[in-house]
């Protein structure tokens, strides 16, 4: 199972400009989370602070019991081996071809033979649809391919935590859909904790288990996907629907006059930038490709969410209850789609609970885990 990431009171500023302050959230182990936010709200900065590339002014970011903000450099490099990071532009090494790029982490951190490396690299390149492009240099391929190659490189060490900085930017809708499916499939296979930073609404609605949003230097909310998807907060509503009307402006914030003016325009019949349907509401999540194992995270998350169900807004509660199957209802003792009367703690199925305790015995040796990410390539099983 992937590692848990606990972030407490993280604050970052460049000079006098505060980027965001007091961001606290927990990425539940093994679950897929997404961070939304308008451009320029510091989503990438947030990601970079999480892996210690930027030093936050205050706060803690604890991965496997190690606080990334204050730990020593040697420790930091050790912790980073748990991460697979996909940068916005792929961040491939320009002097190496795709094969060497993807092989780089293996050659640095493992003692695998060259033939074994070749097998793993080709498998990851195949997974990201780059088979046959091994000898190309990063300068010779399109942005979308660079992005996918970056993902292949991030996956090669079978990370416990995968961070994706806008995996969809520069990709067409079809490739984005494939990428979304790939992330879910990965999560099903290696049970890694995944954080996606994005402003693609479709991806945000269908992929993650948990959703958060950064706006006006603050974390507006972070929680189960149903909470944000059903939220009434103006900023969330505006963002999900991609509307001009609302607190988000072309520049970071909007003043009252501008809002009034826009409101007047809308009332006069001018379009607000949408086609009129409300995109909020809980839509079904993407499931792993048939033939792959079920996502363990789904069950863990259900247990977790049912425990905190009472604390969630009523609309979100309803959304969660509506998404339960009959089997779930029996398990959690719910009848007819109503919230349980007693705040009954959910019972985990196999005594397995998300544990914040550090995972012992990780020393960079991936030999025991490399089989997990194997993708079934028999086409018959997918039918």
């Amino acid at each position: 199972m992937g590692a848990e990431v606990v972030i407490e009171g993280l604050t970052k500023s460049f000079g006098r400009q505060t980027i965001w302050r007091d961001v606290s959230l927990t990425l539940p182990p093994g679950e897929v989370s997404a961070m939304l936010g308008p451009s320029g709200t510091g989503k990438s900065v947030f990601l970079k602070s999480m892996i210690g590339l930027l030093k936050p002014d205050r706060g803690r970011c604890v991965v496997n019991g190690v606080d990334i903000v204050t730990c020593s450099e040697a420790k930091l490099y050790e912790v980073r081996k748990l991460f697979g990071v996909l940068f916005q532009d792929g961040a491939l090494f320009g002097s190496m071809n795709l094969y060497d790029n993807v092989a780089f982490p293996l050659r640095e951190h493992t003692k695998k033979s060259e033939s074994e490396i070749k097998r793993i690299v080709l498998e990851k390149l195949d997974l990201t649809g780059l088979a046959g492009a091994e000898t190309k240099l990063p300068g010779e391929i399109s942005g979308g391919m660079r992005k996918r190659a970056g993902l292949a490189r991030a996956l090669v060490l079978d990370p416990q935590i995968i961070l994706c900085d806008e995996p969809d930017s520069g990709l067409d809708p079809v490739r984005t859909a494939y990428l979304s499916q790939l992330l879910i499939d990965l999560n099903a296979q290696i049970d890694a904790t995944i954080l996606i930073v994005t402003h693609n609404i479709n991806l945000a609605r269908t992929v993650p288990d948990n959703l958060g949003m950064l706006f006006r230097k603050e974390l507006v909310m972070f929680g189960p996907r149903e909470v944000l998807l059903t939220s009434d907060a103006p900023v969330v509503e505006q963002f999900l629907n991609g509307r001009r009307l609302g607190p988000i402006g072309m520049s970071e914030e909007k003043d009252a006059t501008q809002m009034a003016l826009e409101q007047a325009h809308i009332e006069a019949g001018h379009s607000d930038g949408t086609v009129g349907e409300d995109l909020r509401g809980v839509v079904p999540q993407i499931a792993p490709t048939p033939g792959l194992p079920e996502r363990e995270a789904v069950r863990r998350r259900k247990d977790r969410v049912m425990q905190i169900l009472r604390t969630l807004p009523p609309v979100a509660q309803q959304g969660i209850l509506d998404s339960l199957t009959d089997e779930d209802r029996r398990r959690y003792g719910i009848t007819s789609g109503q919230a349980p009367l007693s705040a009954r703690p959910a019972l985990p199925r196999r005594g397995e609970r998300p544990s914040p305790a550090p995972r012992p015995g990780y020393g960079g040796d991936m030999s025991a885990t490399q089989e997990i990410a194997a993708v079934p390539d028999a086409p018959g099983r997918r039918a």
Partner: protein
Amino acid sequence: MTTGLAKGDFPGAGALRETGRLFALALDVLVNIFRKPFQVREFIQQCWFIASVTILPTALVAIPFGAIIALQLGTLIVQLGAQSFTGAASVLAIIQQAAPLVTALLVAGAGGSAICADIGSRTIREEIDAMEVLGVSPVQRLIVPRVLASMLVAVLLNGLVSVVGVMGGYFFNVVLQGGTPGAYLASFSALAQLPDLWISELKALIFGFIAGVVAAYRGLNPKGGPKGVGDAVNQAVVITFLLLFFVNFVLTAVYLQVVPAKGS
């Protein structure tokens, strides 16, 4: 952890901070030199690269440099009536001062600028970040081989400049100024001594280190985008030159105090 107070805003704080970070990188490089695994391949490639861009210009600069020293000293020494020491004086001047400086200027100008541009473009393409995230220290992986390469090349080039410079001096003294070949060669050992050669190589080694570290430092911290890389290269060369002359002054002063001149 920095708070509002710790961010000093007194005049010159920025310069002090930059200096501190430059020294921090220099220390990092020194520590990482001894950390395994050593990047042999990168080191050899960088040595080859720096040598290939510096050998020819260095040799071409060394000949006229030896010549001007010979000519200048030649006339001066004739006026003083010490013709027999022409060889000694030019050997001292070339080996102790000219050779390490010429070497360092070219290593910084040709090699350092290329290192800085290379590292700088990698930084803005987030390659350095990516490398750190992959758990590989860019200092160990990229910077150490480059700094060591510029040190090694500086030391070797220093030998080349010394030989070429002395030969140039000999040529101009003997052929153009009518000096006696025998006296020129014989006076070599009259004033010059072995420590002069050591300090020369030591200077070259230190200058090579400075050139490499400054280039890497500016390359790792470009300000904003591709234009920042251009500015960084420019600054790297200028900063290196300033540091070179200052460090050269310090080393010379210390050397002259520590090692007594021959015959005194």
